[in-house]
C-alpha cells in the first residue's frame, strides 16, 4: 500500500508547525500511487484526478490526527480509497436520480437515445478496457472498491476491511459477490459475441 519516506514524519511536523509548503513534498512523493488506486476504483481519469485532489486536501486537514507511528503512504492511500468510494457512490446516486427523472418524463418527453456504446459495440471495436468497465458497472460501489483492492491492488481481506471500515468477513463477502457478478456479466458478453 505504498511506502513511507524516511523524512515523512519530519515533513509532517514541519507542516503542523505552520510550514504549509512542506506538504507539497508529500504530495509529490505519494500522488502517483494515490492516482493509481483512484483510477482503478473510479475507472476514469477525470474522476481519479478529482479523487487525488480530494484525498490530499482531506489529508492536510486531518493531519493533526495522523499518528506518528503510522505510515503516511498507507494513511493517504486509505483516504484516497474512501474518496474514490464516495465519488462512485455519488455517481451511482446521480444515475439513479436521472433514471427517475427520465421515467417521470417518459409520458410527455421525446426519449433521448443512450449514446454510450453497448457491450456488442465495445467488443466489436476491441475496446477491452471498455468491456471490462461494463462488467465493473454491474457492481455496487462497495463491491467494486473491495474487488479492485483485492484483485488489482493485492490487498488482504483484513486491509480491505480496515480501509472500508467494515468487518473482515463483510469485506470477503463483498469480493466474492463481485466475482460472481462479474462472471455472470462476462458470460453474457461472451455469448453475445
Amino acid at each position, binding site marked *: 500500500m505504498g511506502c513511507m519516506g524516511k523524512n515523512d514524519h519530519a515533513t509532517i511536523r514541519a507542516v*503542523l508547525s505552520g510550514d504549509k509548503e512542506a506538504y507539497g513534498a508529500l504530495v509529490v512523493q505519494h500522488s502517483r500511487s494515490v*492516482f493509481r488506486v483512484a483510477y482503478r476504483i473510479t475507472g476514469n481519469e477525470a474522476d481519479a484526478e478529482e479523487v487525488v485532489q480530494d484525498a*490530499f486536501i482531506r489529508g492536510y486537514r486531518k493531519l493533526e490526527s495522523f499518528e506518528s507511528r503510522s505510515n503516511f503512504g498507507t494513511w493517504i492511500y486509505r483516504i484516497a480509497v474512501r474518496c474514490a468510494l464516495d465519488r462512485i457512490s455519488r455517481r451511482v446516486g446521480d444515475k439513479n436520480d436521472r433514471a427517475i427523472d427520465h421515467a417521470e418524463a417518459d409520458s410527455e418527453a421525446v426519449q433521448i437515445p443512450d449514446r454510450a456504446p453497448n457491450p456488442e459495440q465495445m467488443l466489436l471495436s476491441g475496446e*477491452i478496457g471498455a468491456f471490462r468497465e461494463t462488467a*465493473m458497472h454491474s457492481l455496487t460501489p462497495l463491491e467494486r472498491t473491495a474487488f479492485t483492492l483485492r484483485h*488489482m491492488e493485492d490487498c488482504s481481506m483484513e486491509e480491505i476491511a480496515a480501509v472500508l471500515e467494515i468487518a473482515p468477513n463483510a469485506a470477503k463477502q463483498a469480493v466474492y459477490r463481485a466475482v*460472481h457478478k462479474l462472471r455472470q456479466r*462476462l458470460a453474457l458478453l461472451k455469448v453475445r459475441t
Partner: protein
Amino acid sequence: MNHLSQDELIELYYREDAPEGARHMDTCSECARKYEALQADLADMKALDPPFLPENYGEMVWNSISGQVPVHAGLRRPLFQRVLPRQSWLRQPLWIGLSVAATCALLAAAAFYAGRLWEHRNSPPPIASHPAPPARQRVVVVVLSDHLDRSERLLVQLKHANADDTQLAMPLRDEARSLLAANRKCRQEAEANGDPALTKALDHLNELLNGLANQPGGLNADAIAKLQAEMNKDGLLFEVRVLRSRIPNRQAAVHLKGGIA
C-alpha cells in the same frame, strides 16, 4: 464426492487459506475445469494500467490544491494531545474531564491554603489568649435540698389525699415519675459519699415513688390508701423532714448527664 462451490473456488484463487480445496483440486477434474474457467474470467479483469502521467504530476497536484488549504496551527494543540498517543485512555473525554476537574480542585485547595497562610502572617497578634470555654454539656443539676423539698410536698399531698378523689391521682403519679430519676441519682451520690442514713431514707422514698408512679392497674383509691399506710408506718415524711433540716444551707448537688426533666 462433494465438489467445490464457487465461493470455495474464489477462496482458492485468492489463496485465502483453503488447503482442503487445494487437495480436492488434485483429484477432481470437474472442479479443476471450473477453476480454470474462473482463472480465465478473472484474467480478463486484470488491473487497469493508469494513463501516462507527466513527470511533474505531483507538483501539478500541489499547485492545484495549495490555495485551498490554510496554514496549519497544529502545534497549538493542548500539550496532552501532542504528548499522549491518540489511542491513549488518558485522551478519552471522561479522563480529560476528570483531569480538568482534579486540576481545578487542586488549584482551589492551593488558593485556599495560600489565603489562610497569608491571613495568618498578616493578622495582628492576639492581645491576650483565653482558653476556649469547654464545650457545653447538657447537665442537669439536681440539688438534694430541692429534691427533698419536692419529695416532702408530694408526701404531704399523699398524706392528706382523699382516697376517693380520682382527680388527684394523676398529678401524684406524674410528680412521682418526675422525682424517681432524681431520687436514683441522689441515692447513688449518697452511697458514693458514704452517707448510710441518707441512702436508707432515699431507698424508702424510692419505694414509695415507684408505687405512685408505676402502680399496676392505675392509681386508684385502694392503691392510694395502701401507699398512705406504708408511708405512715415507715414515718417517711418525718424522715424526709429530718434529712431536709440537716442540710438547710448545704449546696448539695448531683450532676446528672442526660435528660432529666
